[in-house]
Every structure is written in C-alpha cells, then in structure tokens.
C-alpha cells in the first residue's frame, strides 16, 4: 500500500504570501476555486492503493484547517491526518520526526509533496518510473526543465541521461549547474529514514562540538534538499523523473493567479463541471472561469479569462474582471474594472473604480520559463506586480488602485499607484 505526506509549513514560513496569509493559512488559500492543498489531495487520492494522507506542518490547530480536513476526508473517502511539529523542523526533519506514523502499516513507498507547488501531479507515472529504473528501493525526484537563468533559483539536478540517476544536486546555486530543477515532489520508501537518521546523528554531534547556538538552528531541523539530496547524489540511490506537464511554485500572491490559470486549464479534463459557461441570464464568460454557486453576478458583467469567484461574492452591472481572484464575500459595484488583482475577503470596490496590477507571468515565448520571484523593491522602486487587497478593504468609487498592496481592514479615500498601503 502507499501513503502520501504533504509538507504544509507554518505561519513563519510562506511570508511572501502576506497579507493574504494573515487571514488563512497559505496552504488553504483558494487556487482555481479550491484550497491549494485540495489539488494535492485529489491527485493523491486518485492513485490506486493510496491508504492515507499525512499533513506535516507547524500551524497551531485552527478552525479552518480542521474544517478542511473533515470535508476532505468525507469527500475523498481516505484517511487524512494533520501531524503538528513542535517547531519548524525543515523539509526533512518533519518526516523524520514522524517516521513511525509514516511507516506504520508497512507502506512500500510514500510520496512527499510540498504544499506550495502547483502541478499536474504525475504520481502514477512516478511509480511506474521507479519500478523501471535503478534498484528496487531507489528514490525519485520529480524534475522539470527551466531556462538557464531561472534554474539557479531552484534546486538543480544533474542527471545521467541514460539511467536518469541523479549525479549531482545543488540547491539554488550561484552559477549555472543544470536546467533540470526540483519540483518539490518526491517518491520515497522507508529506507530514506536511514539516510535522514545519519544526518540527524551527525548534526547532533556537531552541535555538541560547537557553542550553544542561536535558537533557530536546531539539530533536528533537516533540509531534504541541502542535507539529503546533495549527499545521496551519485550514490546510485536517487533518480529523477522529468515531466513535461505543467508546474509552478506558489510563493508570492501574484503566483497564485498564474497557478489558478494552470489549474483552471486542467479542469477541462479533470473537472469540467467547475468551469463556468455562458448561460441565459448569466454573465458573459470568456476563457476559463470558476464561479462558486453562491456568488451573485449581474448578467451584464464580463468575466475572464482566468478568473476565480469565491463564495457569496456580489458583482454588479457592467463589471469587468480579468486574470484575477475574487475572494469570499467581496462586493464589486457597478462598472468597476478588476485586472490582474486579488481582491480580499469581504472587500468592497466602488463604482467605476479600477483595481489593476501588472502580471508577473513567465515569458510565454519560452516554454521553460518559470514565474519570477522578484523582490518587492528593485532599484528603490516597488516592482510593478499584481495588486492585492487584503481582507475587508474598501476602495471608493471612481479611483484607480494600480500595482499596489493594501493591507487588511483599510478604508481608502483616494487612488494609489505603486504603493504599499499599511
């Protein structure tokens, strides 16, 4: 039998997702209409013999997470449990800490997935690949091709092209190593714990030799990438399965819009019922659009492409929404225009207002380009990016909010361009 482990991080991680992550844990942020994690869970639940999904992270128990888990269990009819780390233990430390839970029931293998990736999750393909390549108990990393320049922002994998063995692994190198990058999705078996255990022991000894260090550098904190993969490379144990299917990281709020586009597109084959269509008395739909059934939309509104409308959203007459995510309870008044933006929960956009951002999409002419993780500022100016309105923000009528980030619970009284409004 098989299991899956999803690494969901905690509040001190994924901070580039603020201010949206102030309201809801990042793994639960809706992408293409459903929580980010749900895409992972759906993919895992589809794999034959999948018996259990374990979520590992260091979020405190909270209502949203509990509710999500309950619903997911009922919907997918599979055991889903949250294992809370006592501290941030890193991508390797968490699974090591909970290894007993993972190996209980003797699974032959288990997947480990990062929550903040958007992917087609070719899990059954990875299983087939693992059976055909290398030793019976080899590990597999899912890889994809990036362009040379961007590859250095990721974990780089050098492979033996015939055997697909990983010869060399470097996490975020400062010079070019390889254009095959780590997708953050792995197929392990219980043997992995020997390797992690060895690193754990070594860290413990190193700690004893050094002075008591600052708190964040714990012995038990182990990073799969730097500490495990780098060591395993070239030992005949680690293999890379390259995929051509879609993949993207979801680090910043802007990348959520790009990820939405990828998943919405996938719905044509996996969930066509989630895509809105042009209906009598309904708004005009162009491209891929998700609309929650409880949303209330005027028939003269025009939505899409790449739009997700959350629960209880109200959209007035003549509203235009494109390449945007509108979260639960938002109210878009008549004739307003929302482009390349995320409108937070319960926010209001006044009549004829314009909320507009700049897309940070990867170059469409480069098949291997990935979404950029730009810094907020570049050369002293705010980098033009997706406009984000936090929860409960009010935008007055007739103003323009361009390339700006508005923190939650703010009532604006004028327009802004290229600003962070605290």
């Amino acid at each position, binding site marked *: 039998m098989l299991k899956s482990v999803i690494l969901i991080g905690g509040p001190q991680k994924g901070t580039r997702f603020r201010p949206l992550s102030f309201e809801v844990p990042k793994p639960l942020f809706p992408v293409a209409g459903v929580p980010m994690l749900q895409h992972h869970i759906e993919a895992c639940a589809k794999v034959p013999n999948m018996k259990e999904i374990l979520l590992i992270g260091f979020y405190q128990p909270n209502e949203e997470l509990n509710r999500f888990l309950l619903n997911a269990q009922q919907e997918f009819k599979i055991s889903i449990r949250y294992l809370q780390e006592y501290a941030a233990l890193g991508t390797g430390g968490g699974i090591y800490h909970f290894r007993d839970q993972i190996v209980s029931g003797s699974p032959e293998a288990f997947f480990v997935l990062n929550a903040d990736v958007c992917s087609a999750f070719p899990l059954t393909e990875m299983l087939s690949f693992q059976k055909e390549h290398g030793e019976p108990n080899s590990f597999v990393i899912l890889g994809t091709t990036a362009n040379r320049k961007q590859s250095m922002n990721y974990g780089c994998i050098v492979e033996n092209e015939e055997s697909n063995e990983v010869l060399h692994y470097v996490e975020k190198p400062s010079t070019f190593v390889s254009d095959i990058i780590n997708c953050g999705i792995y197929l392990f078996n219980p043997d992995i714990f020997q390797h992690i255990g060895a690193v754990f022991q070594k860290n413990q000894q190193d700690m004893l030799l050094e002075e008591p260090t600052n708190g964040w550098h714990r012995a038990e904190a182990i990073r799969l990438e730097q500490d495990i993969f780098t060591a395993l490379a070239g030992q005949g144990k680690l293999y890379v399965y390259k995929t051509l299917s879609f993949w993207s990281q979801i680090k910043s709020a802007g990348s959520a819009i790009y990820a939405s586009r990828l998943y919405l597109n996938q719905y044509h084959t996996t969930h066509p019922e989630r895509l809105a269509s042009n209906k009598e008395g309904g708004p005009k739909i162009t491209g891929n659009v998700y609309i929650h059934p409880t949303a209330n939309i005027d028939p003269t509104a025009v939505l899409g492409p790449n739009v997700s409308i959350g629960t209880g959203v109200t959209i007035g007459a003549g*509203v235009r929404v494109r390449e945007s995510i509108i979260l639960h309870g938002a109210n878009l008044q008549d004739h307003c225009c929302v482009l390349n933006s995320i409108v937070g929960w319960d926010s209001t956009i006044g009549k004829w207002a314009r909320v507009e951002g700049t897309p940070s999409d990867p170059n469409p002419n480069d098949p291997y380009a990935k979404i950029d993780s730009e810094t907020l500022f570049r050369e002293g100016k705010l980098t033009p990016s997706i406009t984000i309105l936090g929860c409960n923000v009010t935008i007055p009528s007739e103003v323009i909010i361009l390339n700006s980030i508005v923190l939650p619970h703010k009532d604006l009284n004028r327009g802004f361009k290229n600003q962070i409004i605290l």
Partner: protein
Amino acid sequence: MKALILFCNKPILLHQVEALVKAGVDHVVLAVSYMSELLEREMRVQEQRLGIRISLSHEKEPLGTAGPLALARDLLNDNSEPFFVLNSDVICDFPFKDLLQFHRNHGKEGTIVVTRVEEPSKYGVVVYEADSGRIHRFVEKPQVFVSNKINAGMYIFNPSMLKIFPVMAGEGQLYAMELQGFWMDIGQPKDFLTGMCMYLQSVRQHAPERLRTGPGFLGNVLVDPTAQIGENCTIGPNVTIGAGVVVEDGVRIKRCTVLKGSRVRSHSWLESCIVGWSSSVGQWVRMENVTLYLNGANVLPHKSINESVPEPRIIM
C-alpha cells in the same frame, strides 16, 4: 483648423462673430496664417446666416500681432468708424456694446480690454489709472508684481491709429476697460477645459434651459440634441457632448469635452479629457487628464490612459 475648434458645441470663431454682430458689426476680417478651403466654405455659410460680410486676409509669413493689422489696413480704410480687434483664442461674455460705449466716452484713439488674473506673470500686464482707465505702460511677463490686470486680447481702435501700442500709450491715447465676468485664453489645451467650465457656469446663469438636467446628469452639462446617451450613465459636472456623439451604457464622464462623432463605449470613466473628432474609446477604459486632442484615435478596451494622443493612433 484651430478657429473652427468647437468650444461648447460651437466654433470659437462663431462665439466671437455672433457677439460682434450683436454689437452692430457688419464686416469681419479674419487674419489667417494659412488659407483653408474648409474655413472659406464655413465663412460663406455664416455670411449668409448672419447677413454680414466676412473677408479673409492671408498672412503669408508670420508677422506677430501687428502683422495682421498692417495687412488689413487697406480693408479698414473704407470708413472712419472704430474697429474691433480680437485674439482668436479668447472666450468670455464678449461685452462689445459696452466696449464701444466706453471707447466713445473717452474719445481717444484706442481701448484695450483687460481682465484680472491670479498669476499675471504668465501674461502681458497693463498698468493704467484706475478711475479714468488711461494706460501708462505695458510690461510683458513681469518677474515682480506690477499689476494683476492683463491684456484680455480684445481691442477697439479708431482707424487713424494703426501704429504700435506702446507709442500710443506714451501719448495718452490708449485706455483700458476692465472686463467683468469670466475670461479664458483657450489656446492652451489645459485652459480649454477650465474655460469650458466657466462658460458653462455662465450659461447656467443666463440661459439655464440650454443645459441638460435629470437623472444621471450632475452640475452643468451641455448635450447636442443629436447625441445619444445610454442607460445608467453619470454625466457631469462640466461636460460638453457634441453632435452625433454616442455614449454607451454605464459611462462616467466628468469635466470633459467630447467632440463631434465620437463614441464612448460602455463602462468607461473619463475625467478632464478632450476627446477629438471621430475617436472611439473602448469599453472599461479609464482616461484622465488627456488634455490634447485624442484625435481620430481608437482606444482599445480595458486601457488606462494618462497621456495625450495628438495623432490618430490605436492604443494597445
């Protein structure tokens, strides 16, 4: 053709000519820097309509402000009645009857209309005796405050003068009459809209029935009878909509002039713009401070424009 530019749905020139005719003028000379068939044709029409004579005097090389006067000298020697001279970019309540009266009263060679402005250093300033109106001197764009009265671009002269102003002033032959009411030099695009606001306010005071009111209209709005306005629009304050303009549903327009034959498509938002002839503004467009003419341009949907588009162009 600058003189034919519509100001509040009427060519600027016509605002001036009609006011002159009301004051008893029966012959108007237009000094132009280039001959235009369009202008000639339009002037023939107005001659018929107003029952006056309109002559065109062509200034082949730029001769400054005195140039046209010299060229027109021949045409003016016909009679000894005083003649008006106007700067074509000026808009106001045109007090030509008062000006004629004032001029006859002081009996000297010339009268210049002056107006009070807040920033005189941008203009030519006139220094004169407050009670009589006798002009002492002119100061061009003064760096220190001299007076807040500037040359409003309207004059009346006896035919016997035809010399340049400063010489006349020295001899006590020039008088200043202060203009009451609004005044604007609409040669500058940004002043065009300010002038329009003032003119519309004047219309509200003198002929409020010309303005459009009702649901969806705020403040002073002038709409040509052949224009069409869609549903759920909010137009005004301070908007002029020209002939044959189509404004689709859900549009918001403030402080703008929309010139003849243009189309503003649905849900767009315009503030402080001059939308030129036969331009088309796409759906959900936002335009702010487009103070030059968006002339025959096509603005595609969902654009936001903050700059001017003087030439026909498609804005992607």
